[in-house]
């Protein structure tokens, strides 16, 4: 008998076999190992592209381009005028307005920024939490609409004492979002239905459901043909933080609390540990006795609940005069970019939410003052995310050195789902 210890089945490469990573982990590592400079540069490139778009579509610029060869400086100054005008309007609309006399008036744009940031942060936290569990929640729109429906109904239909009414509406809203999100988790856990598909579909279902309810259901305002709900009762509304002169409301405090909570949940709690284990490697989590299915459901409940916070924030915080089927105003999708920019970390999401809140607040004054359509914000935001997700591209644009040799594994496939049994 051979007494030699023959090492069993061989490894394919001489490198220490890298552990297979979950689908999301790849991108997270890509994002997190790129240093902060990449994020800043990504914003710079995106703003530069925005500047080009503003310049190209500006009428003065087009006009002066017509006689470029006779007076080239005209073109340059027209470009400068258009771009600097737009971006200074963006700044003054989002941070500080120098044309106001008092500080109290001048700082108002910043409070607007925080007001716009509030739902973005809440929904961004929800999406980020999903990412950490390996789930892509594109269902922000639906979750916000259902949250607005339940919370909004509590807010306008019930008569409750001050304080209690607000809490009741808040709870109903968060529960609505959690419900709509949890449904996705349940479908994934029970049937393996991919959450990207189900969330997109549930967005539309929620939209038509809410449209129906507004037209002919319990959200309809009596005696009105407008598809809009009645106004929220004063008792149910978030109180102002800085007095009636400013729009900033209690929702912002809630969002700070939500950020702290999410940070604790993901980083310090046992449930978060299991969430992350499932997100990084569902197979190993399953073998370690963690119920992957249950984690999917819980994660989507939390994710939807946080998005629901954004939804209810719209109804009893920002737009208290009744809502239509467009109450989500794209926040569910913006939240994805916020979560990506924030690298799916709670405080990163918080910062990203404030940045995008500033874009939003500033874009309105940019449109009013300079006639630049607000759609440009979508362009800038999506470019930021694209660049952040691809640090090599940013490095190439700025000719930055590549930090170390990228550790790529030769094995192409990445685990992403538990093997269905």
């Amino acid at each position, binding site marked *: 008998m051979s007494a030699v210890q023959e090492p069993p089945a061989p490894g394919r490469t001489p490198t220490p076999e890298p552990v297979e990573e979950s689908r999301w982990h790849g991108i997270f590592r890509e994002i997190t190992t790129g240093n902060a400079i990449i994020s800043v540069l990504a914003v710079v490139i995106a703003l530069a592209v925005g500047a080009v778009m503003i310049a190209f579509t500006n009428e003065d610029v087009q006009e002066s381009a017509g006689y470029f060869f006779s007076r080239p400086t005209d073109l340059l100054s027209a470009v400068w005028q258009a771009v600097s005008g737009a971006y200074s309007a963006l700044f003054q609309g989002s941070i500080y307005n120098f044309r106001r006399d008092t500080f109290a008036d001048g700082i108002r744009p910043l409070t607007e920024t925080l007001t716009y940031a509030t739902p973005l942060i809440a929904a961004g936290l929800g999406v980020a939490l999903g990412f950490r569990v390996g789930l892509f929640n594109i269902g922000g729109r639906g979750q916000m609409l259902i949250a607005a429906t339940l919370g909004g109904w509590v807010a306008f239909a019930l008569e409750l004492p001050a304080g209690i009414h607000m809490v009741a509406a808040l709870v109903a809203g968060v529960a609505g979002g959690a419900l709509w999100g949890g449904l996705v988790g349940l479908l994934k856990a029970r049937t393996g239905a991919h959450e990207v598909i189900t969330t997109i579909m549930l967005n539309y279902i929620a939209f038509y459901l809410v449209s129906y309810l507004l037209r002919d259901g319990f959200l309809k305002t009596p005696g009105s043909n407008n598809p809009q709900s009645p106004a929220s009762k004063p008792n149910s509304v978030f109180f102002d933080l800085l007095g009636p002169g400013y729009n900033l409301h209690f929702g912002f405090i809630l969002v700070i609390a939500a950020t702290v909570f999410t940070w604790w949940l993901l980083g310090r709690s046992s449930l978060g540990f299991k969430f992350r284990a499932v997100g990084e490697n569902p197979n190993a989590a399953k073998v370690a006795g963690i119920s992957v299915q249950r984690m999917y459901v819980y994660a989507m409940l939390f994710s939807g609940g946080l998005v629901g916070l954004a939804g209810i924030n719209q109804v009893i915080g920002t737009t208290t005069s009744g809502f239509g089927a467009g109450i989500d105003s794209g926040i569910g999708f913006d939240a994805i970019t916020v979560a990506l920019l924030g690298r799916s970390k709670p405080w990163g999401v918080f910062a990203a939410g404030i940045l995008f809140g500033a874009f939003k607040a500033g874009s309105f004054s940019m449109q009013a003052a300079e006639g630049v359509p607000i759609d440009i914000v979508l362009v800038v935001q999506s470019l930021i995310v694209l660049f952040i*997700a691809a640090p090599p591209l940013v490095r190439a644009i700025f000719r930055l050195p590549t930090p170390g040799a990228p550790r790529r594994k030769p094995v*192409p496939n990445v685990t992403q789902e538990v093997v269905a049994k």
Partner: protein
Amino acid sequence: MSTIAPVNQPTQPHDPDNGPATTVIKSWKAPIVLGVFTVLGFLLLVVFGRSGVSTMSLSTSSDLIQLPDVLLPTRETGIVVTVLLAAITGVSVWMVQSSRKVPIWLYSVFAFLLLLGFLAWASADERIPVPGLLFGSLSLAVPLIFGALGGVISERVGVVNVAIEGQLLAGAFTSAVVASVTQQPLLGLLAAMIAGVLVSFVLAAFSIKYFVDQVIVGVVLNVLVTGLTGFLFSQLLAPNKALLNQPPKFERINIPLLSEIPIVGPVFFRQTLIVYIMYIAVAAVYFGIFHTKWGLRLRAVGEHPQAADTVGINVTGTRFWNVSLAGAVAGLGGAYFTLGSVGAFGKEMTAGAGFIALAAVIFGRWDPIRATLAALLFGFASNLQNVLSIIGSPVPSEFMLMLPYLVTIFAVAGLVGTSRGPAASGKPYIKS
């Protein structure tokens, strides 16, 4: 809904001493689903049945051959349909009992009966123009079909294409502008394809070269295209409508003879050029994917890129060019919005058609023909809503509009059975 959960029960292996054993797992999914729909049908058609006469007109006034209207007594039709539904459910129970698979045609018959019953019920004492209903369905399905074909190509080669929406929108925008400026719809069509390809380039560059998650790139691209087209629309198109946003539409072309076939003719052969291109595209993609060298390599790359690499196929290149091709096909669908139906570009005019196309890809199990059928089904559901709202249907229009999305959730939740997509779809191919 409890029917979503698989109800599988292992039975004792028959003959433990005999050969590689298999045991039969009886899945009661099919009878349960059919049963639920039978009960729903019973409730709607019989318990809440309506009386009157439902009229289905089969010909349009311009047809050479005029078919007489079909008159159905509403209540009786409902009862007959319900009995037949119950019978099919019974058959399916028997089939599962005797360990047989319920054939797909039985589902089709069931669905057709249910639909017939519903149409009759909804059109009590009203007239449903069948050719109009089908014609409109096809029209609404055209961009979905192009989008779905783009999705099939892209996913078959291993790149998840969530950016169909963006490709449609980019195609719609570009074709409107180019066709307006040149007054040539054909050039608009070409421009739409190029726009789709450009969106694909970004998708391909980020997902194939930089290994960014494909779903994320797709989602972000949709936002980017929405923002870009919205921005340019407000800045350029709206102020210069006559110059930039009044494209000539394609004319309808009646195909001689074929267009005079009753029902079929008016629906399929009195269409615009884009629709005829669509017919060719469906056939070409089907033949290409399953019967040509191009398709074999495409599928190989999508299933097992490393294996394809080891036989000398350039995985990256194959993915890049096929994702581009997918963009061109989806771009054509975008052109249909501006050059085929609406006649001008509007902000976010695709309104989620790309996502429905994506659903059609999955519903159609990554098969071009099945995906086309799924897109037609979605088009039918939307148009049914249009027709019913004209005749004053008792069903709120919102619920009809919801239908495609509900159907898709049911589909992905396993009602259609566990479908298997291309194995390497969504996974970057990283060579050292």
